[in-house]
């Protein structure tokens, strides 16, 4: 996608346009070719570069460099946190708490421990507004609870969980608490130490950095095993010659977030308010999926069901005719079955509404006038689809 299409891009939660500063930082890094683990002066340069990157990520989360570990992205970070903690209990499988609305890299990993090793799992269910009740978490705790893993903000609805309140409970009971913050980092400020959690995942491509690189914050390295064993990289916690080019990109992206996240968030919030107002004033019959207010949802995300259309058709219409990219709550899948969003299902949204749901997510390159053009296009596209289905 080139830059001229960015104004039509409303799928920032899937991935973000890479920022030109980030690209500029990565180009020279491609030529730094010494092995970071080497003993010569060229290796030294690279070690320093990696350490600066670690510093930038630490600053982003307001923590120390010794708590930041680079990974190949959010999925690896999630897998690492869950597996790294649970394999320590493999001889005595206990209880895991998570939610029904996690990302596949959490759900599938938790399921793996349940199916293969016999761990017991409690899946917390969100309320209609998408939020998990803190008291539900409290009630789910067992003496043998070995890990809690809950996402900070949901990728589909943008709904934000009360992680800070949850952490008060988990830390009082000293139960390891992992937070998948892949969707929050870059959109809201985080102070991970004040938050009081044990592990936090982030992924650069969700905040204008490159794909395939992320970090896991680890409060106490003795509490977790490596996912990738081997050499001395990452304080001997994650083997593998470092992906220097994308780590440098992550570094620059993290720096930008630290500087600008509040500005971006306030711009996004303006866009979102405008979007909501325009949609409500439009002829479209809309339901909002999950909270839309500032403190309970991301400022860049809106998930809506539009009466009378199928999300998937609307998505293609919006792309092919109007040049807007959005995402959907359901898609056809193989074998004639339909793939309904597990997140919307968990919120007890009915099947027809899920099939007519779309996710609109924008970001720092989105202008207020892009929002206006977007709504105009959306209204036309829906009208066209309705015209095709009139009579149904």
């Amino acid at each position: 996608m080139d830059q001229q299409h960015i104004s039509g891009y409303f799928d920032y939660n899937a991935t973000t346009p890479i920022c030109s500063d980030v690209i500029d930082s990565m180009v020279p890094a491609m030529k730094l070719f010494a092995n970071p683990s080497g003993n010569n002066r060229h290796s030294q340069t690279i070690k320093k570069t990696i350490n600066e990157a670690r510093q930038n990520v630490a600053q982003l989360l307001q923590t120390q460099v010794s708590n930041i570990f680079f990974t190949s992205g959010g999925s690896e970070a999630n897998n690492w946190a869950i597996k790294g903690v649970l394999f320590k209990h493999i001889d005595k499988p206990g209880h895991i708490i998570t939610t029904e609305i996690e990302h596949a890299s959490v759900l599938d990993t938790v399921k793996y421990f349940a199916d293969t090793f016999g761990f017991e799992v409690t899946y917390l269910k969100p309320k209609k507004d998408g939020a998990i009740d803190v008291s539900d978490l409290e009630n789910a705790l067992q003496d043998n609870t070995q890990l809690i893993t809950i996402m900070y903000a949901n990728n589909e609805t943008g709904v934000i969980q009360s992680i800070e309140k949850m952490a008060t409970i988990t830390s009082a009971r000293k139960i390891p608490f992992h937070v998948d913050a892949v969707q929050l980092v870059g959109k809201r400020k985080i102070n991970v130490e004040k938050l009081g959690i044990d592990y936090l995942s982030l992924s650069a491509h969700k905040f204008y950095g490159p794909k395939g690189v992320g970090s896991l914050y680890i409060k106490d390295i003795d509490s977790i095993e490596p996912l990738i064993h081997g050499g001395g990289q990452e304080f001997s916690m994650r083997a593998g010659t470092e992906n220097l080019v994308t780590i440098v990109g992550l570094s620059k992206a993290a720096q930008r977030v630290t500087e600008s996240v509040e500005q971006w968030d306030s711009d996004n919030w303006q866009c979102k308010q405008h979007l909501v107002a325009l949609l409500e004033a439009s002829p479209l019959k809309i339901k909002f999926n999950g909270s839309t207010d500032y403190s309970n949802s991301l400022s860049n995300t809106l998930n809506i069901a539009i009466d009378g259309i199928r999300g998937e058709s609307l998505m293609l219409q919006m792309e092919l005719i109007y040049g807007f990219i959005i995402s959907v709550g359901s898609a056809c899948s193989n074998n004639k079955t339909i793939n309904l969003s597990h997140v919307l299902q968990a919120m007890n949204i009915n099947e027809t509404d899920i099939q007519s749901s779309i996710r609109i997510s924008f970001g720092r390159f989105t202008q207020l006038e892009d929002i206006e053009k977007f709504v105009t296009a959306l209204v036309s596209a829906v009208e066209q689809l309705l015209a095709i289905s009139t009579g149904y």
Partner: protein
Amino acid sequence: MYNDIIIDNFTNPQKVGDIALANCEFEIGNPVCGDRIKIQLMVENNTISEARFRAWGCATSIATANLFCESIEGKTTSDINQKNDQDIESMLGQLEPSQHHCVHILKELHQQLVVQANAGAQ
């Protein structure tokens, strides 16, 4: 993804609509996927002079409905009856696994057409 046949038929469907005096009409639906398609035809001397559709469903099923109407206009029911499964499958071009249910839709449309047209003829 979506091939050009699907894209053309979806973004610019020429056969959307109703035929006030339709003499043949049938609906099909996919209970799992939820796609629904209604076909109205004007059949004169065993020839389909006009075909229109209404549809609610995924983009590929809408495209399928349009393609079906386009392909049968001007044809006789026996022309259509001669199409075998392979002929029908090839009409939609290369599909992703998640679009394969539209092959079944297209086959069902053909079957229904033959059934209904024969019924009308009796």
